[in-house]
């Protein structure tokens, strides 16, 4: 970021958003995997902020306050209900911990996005368990997109019967909230070869049509399971035809892309498009290339919940601010 723009943003933060300038500058010097997203002057900026969180409580450290939001929403991902291996023998328990975090928020999120792999083996009883757990979330609505684990048995028929009402094609859809346009995409129905996700021509044509009438100043939030940017193709962590989707999105001043699948927080900013992947509520995976292959990573039990979590997003309409916080499932003392 150029220094002048950075100063402008910091000034704006000081004057209106309640973030302490010294604290903010300090946070920018920290390295971490969490992220604070701010939209200023129509362009989205991102800042590492995992160190803003108290490692013992998972909450923001004293003296640092997030902007007042017009509305907020939460992203959870990769619940893998049914998984029972040593990496986490109680995935329902850790999902419940994420739900408890949501329900403990000072104001209830407008909605929750689940970015796929709700289940581990796409079994009816696994979907039932997830549904039962999510009934306790204090929010108006939960939106879903499938992960590849959710479509294992029947090509996604069961998933779409449960969660696909009102969607188009194989489950893609869009909706608007407070001037922000949200787009849910399905990139797991054709992922066998090499593990990469695919959107397919039908979905891309629908996306082009969906975006056609929108002004370029409308903030866009896209959510899908497999990352829409190439994280690590050797492990299938990317979407083979994502560039076609991104080319449709580049004219917009602010595009935020939220994904799951890789079970860890990652961030990439490419022009006006910011990509963010969320942690899982079930188990962590190794960093790209850090292991022979992706898969459930067993860590000492006391470290597990620090590697799981949820993502909350605050949107401020009057000053075009979007703040995203990754919160681990650490239990408050």
């Amino acid at each position: 970021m150029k220094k002048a723009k950075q100063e402008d943003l910091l000034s704006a933060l000081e004057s209106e958003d309640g973030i302490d300038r010294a604290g903010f500058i300090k946070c920018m010097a920290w390295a971490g995997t969490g992220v604070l997203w701010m939209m200023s002057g129509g362009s989205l900026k991102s800042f590492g902020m995992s160190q803003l969180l108290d490692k013992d409580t998972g909450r923001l450290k004293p003296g640092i306050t997030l902007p007042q939001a017009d509305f907020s929403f939460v992203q959870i991902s990769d619940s893998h209900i049914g998984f029972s291996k040593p990496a986490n023998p109680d995935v329902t328990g850790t999902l419940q911990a994420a739900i408890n975090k949501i329900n403990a928020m000072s104001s209830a999120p407008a909605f929750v996005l689940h970015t796929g792999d709700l289940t581990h083996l796409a079994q009816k009883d696994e979907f039932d368990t997830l549904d039962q757990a999510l009934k306790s979330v204090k929010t108006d609505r939960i939106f879903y997109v499938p992960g590849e684990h959710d479509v294992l048995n029947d090509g996604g028929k069961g998933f779409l019967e449960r969660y696909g009402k009102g969607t188009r094609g194989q489950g893609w859809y869009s909706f608007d909230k407070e001037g922000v346009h949200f787009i849910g995409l399905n990139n797991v129905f054709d992922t066998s070869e090499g593990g990469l996700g695919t959107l397919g021509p039908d979905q891309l044509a629908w996306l082009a049509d969906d975006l056609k009438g929108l002004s370029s100043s409308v903030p866009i939030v896209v959510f899908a399971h497999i990352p829409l940017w190439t994280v690590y193709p050797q492990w299938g962590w990317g979407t083979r035809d994502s560039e076609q989707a991104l080319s449709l999105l580049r004219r917009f001043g602010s595009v935020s892309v939220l994904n799951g699948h890789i079970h860890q927080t990652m961030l990439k900013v490419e022009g006006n498009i910011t990509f963010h992947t969320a942690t899982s509520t079930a188990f962590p995976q190794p960093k790209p290339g850090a292991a022979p292959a992706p898969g459930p990573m067993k860590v000492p039990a006391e470290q597990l919940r620090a590697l799981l979590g949820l993502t909350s997003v605050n949107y401020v309409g009057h000053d075009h601010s979007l703040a995203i916080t990754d919160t681990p499932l650490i239990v408050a003392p």
Partner: protein
Amino acid sequence: MRHMLINTRARIVAGLAVAVTIASWTASSAGPRREFVNLKVLPKDVSSKTLQHIMIDEFEDGLGVGCAFCHAGQKGSHQLDYASDAKPEKSIARNMMRMTLRLNARYFQVRRPGLGDPGLAVTCQTCHQGKPRPGE
């Protein structure tokens, strides 16, 4: 094609493949159930839950591979032809499954061993340790 077995998935499955493919639905008291075809080692009445558990938790995690390691691709598509026996790895996988079951029965006195059973003494992971070929 009415239904594709296992369907697509990223980073998923499978290593040692089982010859599975297209299926048809039949009703049962436990809900919809698939009848898998071209199964030569796994029980022909294997449930989808057991099959997916073997593919994902045993093969994928045990060998660190995806479906395409054993399953051949469909012509003109990114999708896989799960019924096809075109890839030699699939034949090797069947032999590995037979070997694993025999080792458990003969040397570890596991009665009526089945792939994916929690009581197995020897599994894919025992030798593969997350790699397609042990010792690499």
